[in-house]
């Protein structure tokens, strides 16, 4: 495949899951196992194609768009079907296909009530196309359509296969995100008209060195900010997240944490920063402050949780705070850090939700107090995995979590543009408080491990036969476990891929 001409490969990869969902619909619902296997095959083939695209990707030229397809789509409003990948898109695109594939494997043996794999997997495949499309769309209208496409399947996944409060959680998730994205759409429209009502193309709008004057950019950024900030989620717009995560089925949580949240931060980087650089500069200190509040606040909330899954959900608020701190730095290192943090959080927290789901499968509860410790005795391998992933999540160097956090703090010490002169002291404070957040993070994870992993199992579990890690779990988890180590030891895997693309992108922002 020649990355200059093989645009078809990307389009095929993008819509293969959608076609797969149609295929699943044709299989009779009573063929339960066959449907699950078919989904594994579909996601597996899609992943293989994405792996091939990755292999063919020209890493020496990661700053320019590759596998481009750019055709007129709705000519009446100048909307194009424009998809491509560059160094910024590729890691997220890859992660989307990997996680969905692993989720399909996991679903071979795990599916919560009411079962019905046909509907569940069909929705998952639909979700996959939506998520992947967001990361490769280079037209604002197309981006928005993929963005909204994601909402529907996730709504049904939570609402039908979720926990006891699934209806409340799914409606809240749907409405909150939808509401926020209206502002985003308005901002997109404003940008379109401000730029002369000729194009929705993200690269062309980025190259304009800022659409409109400072006032326009400030207002437009505000609209976009609201749309993306709810998705990230940034404090104080995070309250849909714990409910959605807690009620969602395991696979839903994995994809929610692993991919969906990244759409928000990706949107900031891909759209808001280059198209509205002056607006972004004005908002950057505020984003930084909200990010650091999120770090401290999210970690404190984690300390108070008694439900393992809810605890992990809140930990996302803190971790995404580091990602947003990187963005608030408004320099290349900060964007690198944010994108690295995206991937690391996707891998680590996705894995944590797998573990939480399996914990629930065994104990039929997620209450820390009810589990009561002793998992290292009852299920030694599982206990070791939990320790490993928790340690990765608290940012231990050598594992994936460290680089995003450290680099974000490092980048924030010398923010881009004039921010260093105007807000140098503020940013120093942000760095210090973010660093304190790492202590709180360590605190809640160690406390969690102490309460569920260590000690002797309480009497009610002592004689209960609990399975240690099952074969199907090993298969779906090992890639993530290895990736956690690999990203920690070879940060170049992500930093290196992104470098040229980030330089390219930031040239639009800081000139």
């Amino acid at each position, binding site marked *: 495949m020649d990355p200059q001409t093989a645009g078809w490969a990307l389009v095929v990869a993008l819509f293969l899951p959608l076609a797969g969902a149609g295929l699943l619909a044709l299989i009779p619902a009573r063929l339960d196992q066959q449907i699950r296997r078919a989904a594994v095959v579909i996601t597996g083939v899609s992943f293989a194609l994405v792996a091939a695209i990755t292999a063919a990707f020209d890493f020496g030229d990661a700053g320019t768009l590759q596998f481009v397809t750019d055709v007129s789509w709705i000519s009446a409003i100048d909307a194009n079907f424009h998809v491509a990948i560059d160094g910024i898109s590729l890691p997220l695109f890859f992660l989307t296909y990997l996680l969905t594939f692993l989720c399909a494997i996991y679903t071979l043996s795990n599916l919560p009530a009411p079962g019905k794999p046909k509907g569940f997997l069909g929705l998952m495949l639909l979700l996959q196309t939506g998520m992947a499309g967001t990361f490769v769309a280079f037209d604002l209208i197309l981006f928005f359509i993929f963005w909204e496409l994601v909402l529907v399947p996730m709504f049904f996944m939570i609402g039908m296969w979720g926990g006891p409060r699934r209806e409340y959680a799914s409606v809240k998730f749907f409405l909150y995100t939808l509401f926020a994205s209206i502002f985003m759409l308005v901002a997109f429209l404003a940008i379109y008209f401000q730029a002369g009502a000729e194009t929705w193309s993200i690269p062309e709008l980025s190259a304009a060195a800022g659409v409109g004057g400072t006032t326009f950019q400030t207002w437009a950024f505000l609209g976009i900010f609201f749309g993306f900030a709810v998705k990230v989620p940034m404090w104080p717009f995070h309250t849909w997240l714990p409910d959605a995560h807690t009620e969602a089925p395991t696979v839903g949580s994995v994809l929610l944490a692993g991919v969906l949240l990244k759409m928000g931060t990706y949107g900031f980087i891909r759209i808001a920063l280059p198209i509205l650089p002056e607006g972004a500069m004005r908002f950057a200190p505020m984003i930084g402050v909200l990010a650091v509040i999120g770090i401290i606040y999210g970690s404190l909330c984690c300390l108070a949780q008694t439900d393992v899954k809810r605890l992990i959900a809140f930990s996302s608020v803190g971790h995404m705070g580091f990602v947003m701190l990187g963005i608030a730095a408004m320099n290349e290192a900060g964007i690198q850090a944010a994108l690295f943090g995206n991937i690391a959080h996707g891998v680590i927290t996705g894995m944590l939700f797998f573990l939480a789901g399996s914990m629930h499968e065994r104990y039929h509860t997620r209450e820390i107090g009810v589990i009561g410790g002793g998992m290292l*005795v009852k299920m030694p391998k599982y206990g070791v995995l939990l320790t490993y992933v928790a340690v990765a999540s608290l940012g231990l160097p050598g594992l994936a979590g460290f680089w995003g956090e450290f680099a974000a703090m490092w980048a924030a010490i010398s923010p881009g543009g004039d921010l260093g002169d105007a807000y140098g002291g503020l940013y120093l404070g942000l760095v210090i408080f973010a660093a304190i957040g790492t202590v709180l993070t360590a605190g809640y994870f160690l406390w969690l491990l102490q309460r569920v992993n260590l000690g002797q199992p309480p009497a009610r579990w002592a004689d209960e036969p609990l399975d240690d890690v099952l074969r199907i779990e090993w298969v779906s988890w090992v890639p993530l476990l290895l990736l956690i180590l690999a990203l920690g030891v070879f940060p170049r895997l992500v930093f*290196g891929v992104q470098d040229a693309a980030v330089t390219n992108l930031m040239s639009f922002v800081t000139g």
Partner: protein
Amino acid sequence: MDWMLDYAWLVPALPLLSAALIAAFGKLMPGKGSELGVLSLAVAFLLSVGIAWETFTAPAPMEPVEHAFEWSPLGGGFVIELGMLVDGLTAMMFLLVTLVSLMVHIYSREYMQGEPRFTFFFAMLSLFTFSMLLLVIANNTLQAIIGWELVGLCSFLLIGFYWEKKPNQDAANKAFLVTKFGDVGLIVGVIVLSVPMFGASGSPFNILELNQAAADGAIGQGTIVLGMLMIFLACVSKSGQMPLHVWLPDAMAGPTPVSALIHAATMVTAGIFLLARLYPVMAQSLLVMSVVAVVGVITLFFAGLVALVQDDLKKVLAYSTVSQLGYMMAALGVGGYTAGIFHLFTHGFFKALLFLGAGSLIHAVHSNNMSDMGAMRKAMPHTFWTFIVGSIALAGFPLTAGFFSKDEVLVAGQYWPYATGGLVFWVGLAAAFVTAFYMARVCFLVFWGESRSHHPPHESGRQMVAPLVVLAILSIASGYIGSPVWDDDNNFGTWTATPVLAEADYPFVADDELGTGLQGGGEVLAGGAQGQAGSASVLAVEGEEGEGLGAGSILHGPPSWHLDVLLMALAVFLAAVALAWRIYGRGKPEEDPTLNMGPLTTVLVNKYGFDDFGYRYIVVPVRDHAARWASWSSNVVLDGIVAGAGKLTRDAAMTTYRVLDQKVIDGGVNGAAFSAAWWSERLKRVQSGDVQRYAAVLVAGVIVLVVVFAAAR
């Protein structure tokens, strides 16, 4: 042999390899993986000896060997490097870490026999050794952070080795979190100090470039003070300085070999090492130096006092470690670069020896408490002799390693022309008395008197005794290369000096201050103390023999005899031992007067209330109150706003529907319909079909019209 320096990276790589191999295949091996650890450490040790020899014999100050490769880009043209920096300081740490680690590996084969998770234990020992060496070899501060945090993880996992019991879990968590708090300082400090280096090269974390820039005065005072105080915070927590020392005594919950390796000889000295690595930066600020010195002095004295009231043998040694780390820190704070790391070096050997000896005793009597020991010299002669050697080295008995190094710390205090210098000297001397006293107390209570053991004690086997003997020899011998007895150009001071240090000076020391400082320094026997005016070099290693302390060096170059200090140290030692003998000579712990000092004992037993304070005013408010508040405000306030907005929308919708739509609009529509019906109801009666009535109405209408038109006219 030059090639050895280029292959220094093998020294950390070998333990990493063995850690991986033990984890993967350890359980299949006859020695359950322990032999892999011993083998890799033995090779690493031999390499370290070669490296030490190369650096030691090189003409001083040796140009460091630095190799690095680009590990990853970091954005904005910056890169993360993975590299090695080999000079005397690195070589010295290599020697210490690999040797003690090797001894501990060998010792643990016997000590840990039959323990569950034996293989895990050895994998962790190797992983720890790798992490420590990764820190030591680092050529940039970012790599140092990585090693620094990894040793913290290994420490955590090994303190909590017996995780079935809650106190051990708590101890592990406490250790990790207190040191992690310090890591805030390390991260911020490294970040702050990287800023002035942005223009210099692609890697703003490079240590040599940072040191050089600082020595050249190219870094602003504000940056140095903030950066170094932050890094010092990390050193305070990692190296057990007050008030963040609270984790170290609790860390004794781990197996005793771990205490020897991690919590006495190596990891806890990481803070001292890091400050030594960045000494040229630290030397730029009198404020930083003074803070370091004062914290060190407080620690060395008050931690020593707590050791007096402990019954747990390992706790005595732990507080002793805290106190000795205070000496090292204090030395660095008063310009005693060489003195500080020399004490680090010797202390590593004799404290590892004492811990391993304690492990041997504990192994024999199945108790940590001295009240369960007594008369152990008869049953365990090898342990006894080696322990005594370690004790006198720690107590600073003349001509042992601890004597020379502690002596240098005190002398460094004498030379320092500021108030902290005198503080280090006099408090250090007083603490030396305390040290000698509590070690004498331990020795008398453990080895003399009647046996109080519930088990018949027995001497440990060869694998445990051999490391004791090796370390005992080093507890004496390691002191000589830094002593005046070593009458040679190459000594500890020249070995561990770096070119930057030799060039650097203290910018805040004025020439005239120097003179007075040196005069207050007392007599110097060898070399002559006639300080000549000149710049205040950080090191005077280039000073030739006979010239000694020329060029106004604050730190002595070739070691020299300080007869007055020697006599004072000896007097202190003898007085302390004599007093201890009077009190504990009969080995009866129940008559211990340190436990009957009234309020003073209470204060010491409560460890000055630091642990209590930390729990009550930091842990509980954060873990319980702030966390609950945050969770409440998220669930109730913020979510309440969202839910409120949702409810408001729904209410507005309902109102719109019920009032506007149903009442007003629909009401209007309905009203129109209703009114039509109402009128039609009334009007339809007119349409009665009665012709006469129609005619009557017609006539009436005509009359009305006529009247109207007439009136109009």
